[in-house]
């Protein structure tokens, strides 16, 4: 400490020292401003790219359910109704609306204004209610992603036609539809009710959310009991010796092992050794459980430590055994703290992607998983996959999926904070 006592310090506060003091403070402040501004930029970027995915363009058309096209025999057999050419109904109605001959050289461009999968909507309509055949009904059909992007203003119309995803002819048609009020903008329900798809306009995050939910469910079932019991043992029962020291070092180190290594563990142990199904939430859940185990042990120990010894001594003085004192008195008092820690650990597990890549949870899975052994994907893995698609519509959906993921995390963390404030006792 001798270095302090030099001439610089012994002299009265000089302007030089004041300046240094100020500079130091400004450095600290600007560091914080830098960190926070990065946070804000991140949120603004994601939000500005993603919010538009929550609404979607639809095209309102008068569809004539022409009996001759759907079911010329009138027998109404399921197979005929299933295989009828519903796309033709859509294109007929579009051509009629736009006054275009169906033999027009660019008629295929017009057909592609409507989402490729729209015929399924019509088919379901007919299968649900065969009486609709022969009638003309107004139906809102999902527009293709290019139309959607143009309506949202994400496609620049000033560049030349070859470099544009949408042709002049299509723009003309869209403008006509627009001026006739056939173009609607509605809330994007598909995003929440459908799973992955190759067509951006009909892809959603439902399958990924369910996959994530299953993973977390498995992870909770495994890591919470094991983690809490392990913490009780280490904190309350373990005598200080080499074995418990070793376990402790182990747990502390495990908390800092890169997540991708847990993925490698899952791949070689759960999939290659135990032959559990690849890409399934059960393997994902197991890996996430092992990953969040150390965190849960550490927070549980901290909350057990926070319960004062007077509680233990009181219970034991009244004749309880040590086990009874801990399970009936200490553990209930430590529960809010444990809950908080568990929720935070799970929030981290929810956002984890790398180990899921290792066990194959990034596959194109258009179905919603039913059981925990079905192939599935998870929300962060879905984000990763969509981020790879170059289409503007997928960029929008990736950002929207991120917003959904972040809102889950915010809810979880807010719950944790609420529990901490509401129930935690200060001793």
């Amino acid at each position, binding site marked *: 400490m001798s270095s302090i006592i030099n001439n610089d310090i012994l002299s009265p506060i000089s302007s030089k020292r004041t300046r240094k003091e100020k500079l130091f*403070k400004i450095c600290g402040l600007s560091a914080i401003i830098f960190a926070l501004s*990065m946070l804000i930029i991140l949120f603004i970027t994601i939000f500005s790219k993603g919010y538009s995915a929550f609404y979607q363009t639809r095209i309102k058309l008068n569809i004539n359910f022409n009996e001759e096209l759907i079911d010329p025999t009138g027998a109404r057999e399921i197979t005929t109704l299933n295989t009828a050419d519903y796309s033709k109904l859509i294109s007929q109605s579009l051509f009629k609306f736009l006054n275009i001959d169906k033999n027009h050289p660019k008629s295929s461009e017009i057909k592609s204004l409507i989402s490729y999968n729209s015929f399924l909507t019509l088919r379901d309509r007919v299968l649900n209610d065969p009486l609709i055949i022969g009638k003309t009904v107004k139906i809102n059909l999902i527009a293709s992603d290019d139309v959607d992007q143009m309506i949202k203003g994400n496609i620049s119309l000033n560049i030349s036609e070859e470099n544009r995803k949408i042709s002049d002819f299509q723009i003309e048609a869209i403008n006509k539809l627009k001026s006739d009020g056939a173009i609607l903008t509605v809330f994007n329900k598909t995003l929440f009710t459908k799973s992955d798809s190759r067509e951006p306009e009909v892809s959603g995050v439902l399958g990924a959310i369910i996959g994530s939910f299953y993973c977390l469910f498995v992870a909770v079932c495994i890591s919470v009991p094991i983690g809490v019991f392990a913490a009780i043992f280490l904190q309350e029962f373990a005598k200080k010796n080499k074995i418990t020291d070793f376990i402790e070092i182990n747990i502390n180190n495990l908390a800092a092992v890169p997540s991708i*290594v847990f993925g490698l563990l899952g791949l070689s142990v759960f999939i290659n050794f135990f032959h559990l199904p690849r890409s399934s939430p059960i393997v994902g859940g197991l890996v996430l459980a092992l990953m969040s185990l150390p965190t849960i042990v550490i927070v549980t120990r901290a909350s057990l430590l926070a319960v004062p010894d007077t509680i233990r001594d009181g219970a034991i003085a009244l004749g309880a055994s040590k086990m009874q004192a801990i399970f009936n008195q200490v553990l209930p008092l430590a529960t809010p703290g444990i809950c908080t820690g568990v929720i935070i650990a799970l929030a981290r597990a929810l956002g984890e992607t790398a180990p899921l890549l290792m066990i194959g949870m990034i596959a194109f899975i258009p179905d919603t998983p039913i059981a925990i052994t079905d192939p599935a994907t998870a929300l962060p893995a879905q984000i990763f996959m969509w981020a790879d698609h170059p289409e503007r519509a997928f960029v929008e959906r990736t950002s929207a999926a991120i917003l959904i993921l972040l809102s889950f995390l915010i809810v979880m963390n807010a719950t944790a904070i609420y529990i901490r404030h509401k129930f935690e006792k200060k001793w």
Partner: protein
Amino acid sequence: MYVFLAILLCAFYGFYIGKKKPLKLVQNKDLSKLNSNPKYYGYYIFLWCLIPALITFFTLNFFSNFLIKQIVLDLVPEIETISKTNIEFIYDQIKIMASGNADAFNTDENLMLASDKYKELIFIYDASVFLICTCLSAILLIFFQKKISLEFPARKKVEKFIKFFLLICSIVAVLTTVGIVLSLFFESLRFFKQISFLDFIFGFHWSPQIAIREDQVGSSGAFGSIPVLTGTFLITFIAMIVAVPVGLFSAIYLSDYAHKKVRSTLKPLIEILAGIPTVVYGFFAALTVGPFIRMTGESIGLNIVTESALCAGLVMGIMIIPFISSLSDDIILAVPQRIKDGSYALGATKSETMKKVILPAALPGIVGSILLAVSRAIGETMIVVMAAGMSARLTANPFEAVTTVTVQIVTLLVGDQEFDNPKTLAAFALGLELFILTLFLNLMALKIVQKYREKYE
């Protein structure tokens, strides 16, 4: 399924009997004559009915799977000539046929025979397991309920079991580490049988593209991990250049300059940065930061690729800030007030106290936190997978694309996997390298931080 039901039924009946019996034994309802609370006698019988039967069930299950597979596959002709993955496939097919689902697509007679045998064996196995487990449970029930007497220390025995169970739970963490080490080690061993260890550690050329199937075209591959490691270190270094000063200055400002109220809002806000999933950072880096850096470079005449090390490192640095600021903040606050007071009493200003007294005292702890952050940066995956490149280049130029250990693990394991091929196994060798590197950093950091804590507690 029925086995579980039977065992559980047995166990609950045991609990009931165990609880009732001591009540019958005591006269005049004088419970103080009993050694333990009656329910502990119940628990005691319950555990003895449940645990041994379950252990038997799982052991039988584990071994019978191999046995049945062996017997069934012996029925398939020329089984020795079939490769390992195909055997799995055939066995799966037999299983599906046995369940009666897919008899249409395969009518090979040998397979039919095998699937019949499989059905038969499974039936025998199920029946015998049911009998063995239920009988075991029932016998133990009868045997242990006889042991119940007034003096029998049921509570102590039950608590002893619970304590043992707690110990098992805490050993799971050790088992996880053992699992990690063993799985990485054995797969790496298989890798080093094909590629020499020295080539891997000291090789300067990394191009793991080997033809997995014979009809694919591809080079023969080279597995020198040096360029991958240098890429990792380059990105980590850039991340640290961002994170260390920002994190440290934030910690200093929060702990010594900020008002208490300001601190309690700013600290959680900065910690949000650590809570954002890394895949979000990856998307941010690839979509916003990368193009921004490239355009900035263009405007000042520099040629920067979109997937530059600078971009990945910068974003990773932002992610790391809270790891350094939180830990350093705690550590700076742990420096005893008397040391600070002494410095102020000598007339030092705040910044002088911080620079010349507090930071030197807190240095070991801060170094520990930085080491933890480095370990975190080395193991970080999603940001680099999405924002850094694939090609292994030996360069220190932050404007070029480099690759990292984690990126290579992901590219090697996503897609076709063939566990006889060095391409797939190389991922495990890289994983081992990563594990050892981070283990070393973690242990060192934990030790330093712990020593530091003890010093001031």
